[in-house]
């Protein structure tokens, strides 16, 4: 089967997941309102990043002319296709800006020397403008990429020329992506603690983007194959993706440690407060669990050759990694905001689970809609034959 047909049962599951999400938001409003914004920011950012992984991966492989993604390029296109939707829902956090961001309170800023000096950048109008620019540019990139690939499908005789123009365009996209993604992570997540700063923060969130994106890609691929689609993808392709996953989980750990070590060494109060908070008050358990789930376990599992060629093992590793990456973002977002609202004890409850499920349902609903739009095989891609003949 070369075209994905939407599965009604699956859509029902996704819609009920969205229902759970609404239930979770309602529950959080009732019990602990700040949790609404913390969870929406965490989960929406995570799924937006997974969508952006599609753009990133397409652009990188276009630039270098990599053939190995050609057999499943349509999945990446569908991931990129979710960006406008997840981007649009990201604007919800503007409603909760006052709860999330300390710097939106004029009285706090007035009495704080550091925040005063940052006020030219950290103010709500400029923040919103940057948000519109970032999400607008990402949506534009996603649409242009998908449109160009569509042209390639429609005009086989021009496929080579389109691929060439795509590689130039992708180079530009990479630069735009690098800058906007850094700005977005600085704005949305780092400014939750406006006194604190880390110049590597954009790279850190980016490493999480690649890891969670790869895990999602592998899971979707395994699901589609179990449904009888994409039979031409074989273990050699999984092996390649497994190696990338191993590499990028380690890259994530490397960047995590780079940020940690420098702050620990310098021991400047306004920098180290970030880790002091996270290594105390019950957060330390989640803080270390994050490293174990996102790096230690996947790294040990993915080291041997056979695990990367075994779909079951790969699947479970990807689930572990996705949980770890959720925790990664949660530990970035929650501690300081919760502390501001007088919540010092850590509590991960059904609210977290339900809101995460809701956004997952939303993301997957859009994703599979996009996937069903065109053929699953990028037939006119000049790289398809080479990509299918991949050997390890």
């Amino acid at each position, binding site marked *: 089967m070369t075209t994905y047909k939407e599965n009604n049962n699956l859509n029902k599951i996704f819609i009920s997941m969205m229902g759970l999400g609404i239930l979770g938001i309602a529950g959080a409003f009732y019990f602990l309102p700040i949790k609404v914004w913390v969870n929406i920011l965490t989960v929406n950012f995570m799924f937006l990043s997974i969508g952006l992984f599609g753009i990133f991966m397409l652009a990188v492989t276009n630039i270098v002319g990599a053939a190995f993604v050609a057999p499943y390029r349509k999945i990446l296109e569908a991931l990129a296709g979710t960006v406008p939707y997840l981007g649009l829902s990201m604007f919800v956090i503007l409603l909760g800006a006052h709860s999330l961001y300390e710097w939106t309170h004029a009285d706090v800023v007035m009495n704080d020397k550091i925040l005063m000096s940052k006020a030219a950048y950290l103010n709500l109008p400029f923040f919103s403008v940057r948000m519109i620019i970032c999400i607008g540019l990402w949506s534009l990139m996603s649409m242009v990429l998908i449109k160009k690939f569509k042209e390639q499908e429609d005009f086989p005789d021009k496929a080579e020329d389109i691929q060439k123009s795509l590689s130039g365009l992708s180079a530009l996209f990479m630069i735009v992506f690098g800058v906007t993604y850094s700005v977005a992570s600085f704005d949305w997540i780092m400014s939750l603690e406006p006194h604190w700063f880390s110049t590597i923060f954009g790279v850190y969130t980016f490493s999480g983007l690649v890891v969670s994106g790869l895990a999602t890609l592998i899971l979707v691929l395994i699901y589609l194959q179990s449904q009888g689609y994409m039979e031409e993808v074989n273990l050699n392709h999984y092996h390649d993706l497994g190696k990338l996953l191993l590499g990028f989980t380690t890259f994530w750990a490397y960047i995590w*440690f780079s940020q*940690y*070590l420098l702050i*620990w*060494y310098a*021991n400047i109060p306004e920098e180290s407060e970030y880790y002091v908070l996270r290594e105390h008050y019950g957060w330390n358990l989640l803080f270390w669990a994050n490293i174990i789930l996102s790096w230690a376990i996947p790294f040990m599992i993915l*080291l*041997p*050759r056979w695990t990367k060629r075994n779909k079951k093992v790969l699947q479970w590793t990807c689930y572990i990694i996705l949980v770890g990456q959720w925790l990664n973002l949660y530990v970035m977002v929650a501690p300081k905001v919760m502390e501001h609202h007088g919540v010092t004890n850590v509590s991960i409850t059904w609210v977290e689970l339900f809101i995460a499920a809701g956004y997952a349902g939303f993301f997957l609903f859009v994703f599979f809609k996009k996937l069903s739009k065109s053929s699953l095989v990028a037939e006119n891609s000049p790289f398809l034959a080479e990509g299918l003949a991949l*050997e*390890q």
Partner: protein
Amino acid sequence: MSKKYLLGVFHDEHDMIRAAQELRKSDISIFDIYTPFPVHGLDQYLEIKPTRLPVVTFIAGTAGLVLALLFQYWVSVIDWPINVGGKPFNSFAAFIPVAFEIMVLFGAFITVFAFLLRSKLVPMFSGSIMHTGATQDKFVIALEVKDVSFDAQLISKTLDSFGASEVSVREV
């Protein structure tokens, strides 16, 4: 003790692969294949066991990691404690970069040496090259000549029929 080998030399890798396939189909075991560059998918015709080199790398890397951590602990806590910016003597985070480097160093070097040793590539011993063509532009299939059940004529014919440019016997 010297052994005899029958060599089939090919100009083209695809011819060589087809010949290897044919030999395997008629249940003739191939001793080794020598190529000037890696050719994918050869392993399946060669009946070679998966390499154990990764195990060596893993053990060597782990040993490097543990040794480096212990050494740093001994230096900075037991033998010569120095107060650096008020940090505790046993500062685990500071040990990690060094431990990581030593792990990579041990892993890489011991793997290379283990490989050289196992391939009998040590000083004072001159290795033998089955066919010098394989170091340039030829693809060589080598079959061990056994006393029983080795039909040299038939195999030579098979190799010829797949376009072998040269079929010869060599003693090593």
